[in-house]
């Protein structure tokens, strides 16, 4: 227990001192295991963890879904989606911001990254909103908040990592994310509508599209909807495993991009290399996190935390509330992936011992880390947005985010109080 705590502190210290997370986790876990079991055990465990992870077909879901997201995001699908959403919603008050949200949700359905969603949308939606006189704070905050839907609506890189770490079915996690993701979209749209009603100067109306324009706008987006339905319908119907669905998704995305002549040789190279590097980075941190999970178990840290929790007499939901507060606080100083890699192995035994469902826990963990992506001081989405929109101040973006963070907290409480919102589809699927 003491060794485990020292190792946890060492991981955090090294990580904050900018040692790459993969190597903070790997080095500390290596020495931690060696302390108790000797160097030969530790070194064998290191190489076994790496080769088990690398030679795992289930983990191949990671590069394939990343590639699918990269192909579809770099080939201009977001602009088509925005055009379609705008044709239907643009004319109502706050319509462009509502269209931005719908586009973010739609884009999230093919891209598993929150930051990529926010970065893409800042190029697609922001110029239109500015053209129609939207305030900087609402325009930028809609994109930063909308981007967070990227890690809940499947496919989601963070959910994949959670699934791998907790050995939870990734397909079920994806299906579980659908209702909370759509709920997030509804809450965000409500927040925009309320802002547009009370502060109409922030969100003027756009132009009304006629019926012909509305129908035409759907032309560019139907293959993408068909792809989404095929993949997640396939997972829901248990026709595909998550890795198979990812392979189908990446394959069809490639076919769509080639048929629609949306891919050049240069973009092909960029898309494949980008997906490869992101996958290598994720595998590296997974090696570290898997070894760290072994240390947490071997050092008695997991048992120690569990015993401390039992001694405290806290009930199930009080515990979840405390865990969520810890995640929110950590979210102020670390990014979502780092929090999940370090904290999930620590908290999962408590969650299981209290009879909670790991899929439900995964969803609320992702929602809480989503909130971390848009809260100061380290709201990663805000930083990405700031990089693409240098003329908008941090203060303006954070000010605009207040309504979105408020509805996010309400959604978190709702998802904790009503687990069936996350689990109903999974239970129907089982």
């Amino acid at each position, binding site marked *: 227990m003491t060794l485990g705590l020292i190792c946890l502190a060492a991981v955090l210290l090294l990580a904050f001192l900018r040692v790459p997370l993969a190597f903070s986790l790997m*080095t500390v876990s290596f020495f931690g295991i060696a302390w108790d079991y000797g160097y030969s055990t530790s070194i064998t465990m290191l*190489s076994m963890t790496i080769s088990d992870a690398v030679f795992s077909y289930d983990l191949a879901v990671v590069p394939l879904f990343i590639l699918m997201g990269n192909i579809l995001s770099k080939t201009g699908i977001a602009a088509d989606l925005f055009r379609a959403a705008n044709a239907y919603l643009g004319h109502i008050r706050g319509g462009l911001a509502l269209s931005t949200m719908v586009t973010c949700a739609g884009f999230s359905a093919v891209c598993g990254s929150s930051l990529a969603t926010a970065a893409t949308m800042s190029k697609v939606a922001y110029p239109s909103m500015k053209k129609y006189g939207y305030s900087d704070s609402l325009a930028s905050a809609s994109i930063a908040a909308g981007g967070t839907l990227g890690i809940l609506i499947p496919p989601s890189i963070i959910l994949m990592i959670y699934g791998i770490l907790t050995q939870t079915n990734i397909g079920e996690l994806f299906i579980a994310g659908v209702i909370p993701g759509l709920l997030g979209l509804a809450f965000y749209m409500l927040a925009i509508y309320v802002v547009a009603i009370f502060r109409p100067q922030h969100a003027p109306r756009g132009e009304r599209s006629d019926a012909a324009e509305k129908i035409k706008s759907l032309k560019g987006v139907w293959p993408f909807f068909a792809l989404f339905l095929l993949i997640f319908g396939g997972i829901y119907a248990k026709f595909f495993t998550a890795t198979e669905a990812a392979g189908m998704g990446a394959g069809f995305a490639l076919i769509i991009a080639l048929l629609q002549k949306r891919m050049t040789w240069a973009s092909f190279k960029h898309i494949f290399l980008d997906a490869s590097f992101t996958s290598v980075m994720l595998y*590296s941190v997974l090696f570290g996190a898997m070894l760290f999970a072994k240390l947490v178990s071997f050092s008695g840290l997991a048992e120690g935390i569990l015993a401390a929790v039992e001694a405290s007499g806290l009930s199930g939901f009080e515990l979840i509330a405390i865990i969520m507060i810890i995640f929110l606080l950590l979210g102020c100083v670390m990014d979502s992936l780092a929090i999940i890699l370090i904290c999930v192995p620590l908290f999962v035994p408590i969650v299981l011992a209290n009879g909670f469902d790991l899929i439900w826990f995964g969803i609320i963990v992702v929602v809480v880390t989503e909130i971390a992506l848009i809260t100061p001081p380290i709201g990663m989405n805000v930083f990405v947005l700031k990089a693409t929109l240098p003329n908008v101040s941090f203060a303006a973006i954070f000010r605009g985010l207040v309504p979105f963070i408020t509805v996010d907290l309400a959604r978190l409480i709702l998802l904790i109080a009503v687990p069936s919102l996350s689990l109903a589809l999974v239970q129907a699927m089982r």
Partner: protein
Amino acid sequence: MSTLISRLFKVIEVVLILSLLAMVLLTFADVIGRRFFNAPIYGAHDLTEHLMAIIVFSGLPLLTAARGHLCVDLLDRFLMRDSMRWWHFVIQLLVAAALGLIGYQFIVAAKDAADILEVSHELLIPRAYMYYLFAVGAFAGALASLLPARRHNDVHTEEAL
């Protein structure tokens, strides 16, 4: 020396692109065959796993050279000062030591695998070759960590968030 490294990196880029493309095509064809025609490709899972291993350990030196590993950047304002350069060198030393250890261990694992004739499940591909590749990838990563950073336009690992 720099030209040689650049050429090597270009070759690795081709390996990465081809491996990922092969993985997509293989999985796609296997799923279509398995689910629609009841005719899966024999050994597809095995090959996918090997392609993934090639991607991870070929990409490792490039990612390390580009300093593309995930870092917590909370204290960047303090740690990125010129006066803290020595600390960055310590970090790169630590990364190199960790990768060197992994490389060494996979040389040992490769020898063991060759002795006991360890092979993959379906296609019976000898594991020793793969472990040697892991070792080479890890050693190359260690070296890349000690050499000056080489930024790469296609490294956007923050997009995993």
